[in-house]
């Protein structure tokens, strides 16, 4: 972002830089990019906010929806319930992820590559599928609750309610915290630890005075991300919440159950305020972050410590074990004929003809939607990040663009989806034609996961030496040529990474599209909700299995297909 706008050393000072046609193209693109973000992020929020001041017949009622919500005891309880489960889940998940990532980065534990992969497994499992797995483990007829049907001691955790939601959310947000904390922990300077050792500092003190402060920002970020996700998640409480209401399920009940879109909009505002608040605080804190790792830093080589390594191995095995058990249970449940009365295995539940949700049609639609989202999303995000990072001039517009690109992180999927309904299903909107098409679903998904992809892309672009642009410009090569011939090939691994991220998340997402998907385009993840709603839990488990295997398959193909490329890319980095 700090690339100088001067094209040559002469044009500094009083002399105005020459604006070429190339600059105009870039400005035009930047304007277009900003417009896209306005349409995708800002404009849809307006009709939603407005809607919360109207009643269901469309007459202005001021704040009375809010008053009504606060005064209905059972509804306002959800607000505190949401806070409760989000805070507890965040504390548990971040603590576990901190230990797990510490084991991955700072110990000489065996099997690290495996733990790294398996720890990330929940990212491929839709939260609602995790919850279904929990029913078969901890529900009234679950494997654990009944002690594998009398073979083992029984253990009833009282799944339906807060316990189940927290367990499900912890599994859901754990990998998100793990990514952030592993990155934070791997950026460190070994010299600090050497100094500590020379001064005979106790390991505990070293941990508290060196390790924790060095990951402070990562830790805060992880907490906010986990909080936002758990606070706004809909899948887990929907399935195992029982009668423990949270805001997300309230919105669903109001909109789907009672056709009360105004109240849905009102509750959305309640859902939105804390997330925006968390987002803003996180941004302010992150601004203070300074580089910990300087050019002189020495990478840390973890030393072997049999006791610590052993404990960490046991801990990581426990976590990975729990994840694998949940995943295996989902698969098992999809194969068992009639749980708990007939444990013969078969593929009966993979025939979706007689259940809700649209079956294989939904599955294909989801794949198509995810492919389009991955393809278009990657292109749009990358161009957007390029314009912000490498663009010249119009600094205010680039800053605005950057800001708007980070906003989607603070928007809960349900809120975004509902906002899109209000915005696009308005006959006077020129984009009304998009409503009820695959296109709007793709746009919604691109925006929903925009921030993470954008930050990934802009980090990647920052690593490219601005010299490339400078040299190209001095040789009168237009920027788009440099972009296509230099920037894109250099960033290819990042591009593919973004594509995969989009694909996997679009496959499992429910919240953003549950109100938005048109009837003739059933979707796999929504089908899980519908099947669970109808009580067909085994087919829901079957569909979950399909989704997980597809996402993992795509990831595996990517990994295998880019093996050579990554090697070459790393070689290039080394040579430079």
């Amino acid at each position, binding site marked *: 972002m700090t690339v100088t706008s001067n094209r040559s050393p002469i044009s500094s000072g009083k002399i105005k830089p020459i604006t070429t046609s190339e600059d105009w193209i870039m400005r035009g693109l930047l304007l277009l990019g900003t417009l896209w973000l306005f349409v995708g992020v800002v404009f849809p929020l307006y009709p939603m906010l407005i809607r919360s001041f109207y009643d269901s017949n469309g007459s202005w009622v001021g704040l009375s929806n809010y008053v009504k919500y606060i005064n*209905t*005891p*059972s*509804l306002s*309880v*959800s607000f505190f*319930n949401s806070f409760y489960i989000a805070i507890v889940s965040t504390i548990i998940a971040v603590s576990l992820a901190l230990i797990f990532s510490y084991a991955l980065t700072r110990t000489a534990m065996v099997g690290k590559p495996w733990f790294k992969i398996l720890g990330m497994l929940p990212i491929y499992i839709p939260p609602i599928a995790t919850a279904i797995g929990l*029913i078969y483990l901890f*529900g*009234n*007829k679950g494997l654990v609750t009944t002690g594998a049907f009398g073979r083992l001691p029984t253990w009833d955790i009282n799944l*339906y*309610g807060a316990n189940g939601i927290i367990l499900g959310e912890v599994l859901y947000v754990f990998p998100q915290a793990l990514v952030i904390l592993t990155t934070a922990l791997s950026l460190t300077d070994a010299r600090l630890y050497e100094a500590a050792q020379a001064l005979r500092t106790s390991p505990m003190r070293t941990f508290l005075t060196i390790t924790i402060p060095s990951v402070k920002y990562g830790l805060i970020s992880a907490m906010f991300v986990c909080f936002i996700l758990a606070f706004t998640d809909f899948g887990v409480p929907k399935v195992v919440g*029982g*009668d*423990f*209401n949270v805001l997300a399920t309230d919105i669903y*009940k109001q*909109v*789907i*159950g*009672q*056709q009360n*879109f105004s109240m849905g909009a009102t509750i959305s505002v309640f859902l939105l305020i804390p997330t925006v608040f968390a987002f803003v605080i996180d941004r302010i804190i992150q601004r203070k972050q300074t580089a910990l790792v300087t050019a002189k830093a020495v990478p840390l080589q973890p030393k072997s410590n049999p006791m610590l390594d052993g404990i960490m191995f046991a801990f990581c095995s426990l976590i990975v074990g729990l994840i694998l058990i949940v995943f295996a249970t989902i698969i098992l449940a999809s194969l068992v004929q*009639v*749980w*708990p*009365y007939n444990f013969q295995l078969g593929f009966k539940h993979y025939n979706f003809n*007689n*259940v*809700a949700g649209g079956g294989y*049609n939904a599955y*294909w*639609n989801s*794949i*198509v939607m995810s*492919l*389009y989202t991955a*393809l278009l999303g990657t292109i749009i995000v990358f161009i957007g990040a390029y314009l912000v990072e490498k663009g010249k001039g119009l600094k205010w517009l680039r800053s605005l663009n950057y800001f708007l690109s980070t906003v989607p992180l603070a928007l809960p999927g349900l809120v975004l989806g509902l906002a899109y*309904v209000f915005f696009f*299903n308005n*006959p006077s909107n020129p984009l*009304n034609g998009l409503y*009820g098409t*695959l296109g709007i679903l793709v746009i919604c998904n691109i925006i929903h996961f925009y921030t993470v992809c954008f930050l990934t892309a802009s980090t990647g672009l920052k690593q490219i030496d601005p010299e490339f642009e400078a040299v190209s410009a001095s040789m009168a090569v237009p920027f788009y040529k440099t972009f296509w011939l230099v920037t*894109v*090939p250099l960033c*290819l691994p990042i591009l593919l990474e973004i594509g995969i991220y989009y694909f996997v998340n679009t496959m499992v997402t429910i919240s953003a599209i549950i109100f938005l998907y*048109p*009837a*003739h385009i059933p979707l796999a993840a929504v089908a899980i909700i*519908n099947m669970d*709603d*109808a*009580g067909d*839990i085994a087919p829901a488990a079957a569909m979950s299995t399909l989704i997980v295997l597809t996402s993992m398959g795509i990831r595996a193909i990517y990994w295998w297909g880019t093996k050579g*490329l990554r090697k*070459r890319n790393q*070689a*290039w980095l080394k040579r430079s």
Partner: protein
Amino acid sequence: MRTSLRKFLIRFMCGLLFVTLVAACTASNNPQTNTETTESITVYTALEDDQINTYLESFKQNNSNIQVNIVRDSTGIVTAKLLAEKDNPQADVVWGLAASSLLIADQQGLIEPYAPKGLENVREDFRDSKNPPHWVGIDAWESAFCVNTVESEQEKLPIPISWADLIKPIYKDKIVMSNPASSGTGYLSVVAILQMKGEEEGWKYLDALHQNIAQYTHSGSKPCKIAGSGEYPIGISFGYRAVKQMNEGEPIKPIFPEEGSGWDIEANGLIKKAAIKPAAKTFLDWAISPEVAKKYAANFPLTAVKTDVPIPEGYGADPYGQLIKNDFQWMADNRERILAEWTKRYDGKSEPKSE
């Protein structure tokens, strides 16, 4: 290295393009395999998933030129969709939606009156009294309990035979019921209580019942399916579900409560829009034709068009006698008020239950 990278890029792009093309083709092929199709209609329905395909067979045979897009969801959702799309209706026809919900849509002016062919065969109390009618029923469904016999025996629970039984303390946290705000089945059970006992006594009964409810589910069939899987021993659901699950071998006993069952009609209606397709009317004519009525009758003892199909196994001998006296207009007019009251009292178990 540069060339190999570029080669990879080209190959990658080609691959991606190919995949997208294939995907696009399969996507567009799925909904409309038949290119000769001249007309397509969108049908919103709340009929059960496992019924729709069998019903539609005869329509597809006789009307191969009409492409039918079925949109199935639970009663609450279909109603919500209809109302949400008020300004820009997507559906052409509503098929098998609770009459009390159709009345709400009708109040909002969403329904175009239409008298389908063969209307005279439809029982008079199963259709709108206006002429031409705004809604025409096809069958009726009634509340019933699904009791898991295996679990009941294990937990030493007597099998409840009446609404009065359900509020006995022995059933504490053993019963699952659907949330009336989202489920048509839940709503008809609640209004049945309110109509039978009068509002004051009715709410008292529901307060007592609430003590025994373990969960309120979103859809009307889920309580029965949960009972079938033994997760909870008793589900308040509807007759068809209970009978079907019993016949499929699940340890379910359908119970039609002694005091009578709440009920509602599954009805059809034509959606009012600028261009009403002739195919929509063809569909509505077919939907009350004798051939499909036989198929309704195979599932439901109560059909709008009289057939010679015997009462399906598992139902009582006098299905009409089982029904309470029901006022659909009252059900529709008071829906919002009753649901608000219900939500205030029972939604959210975290609230201390009123003793």
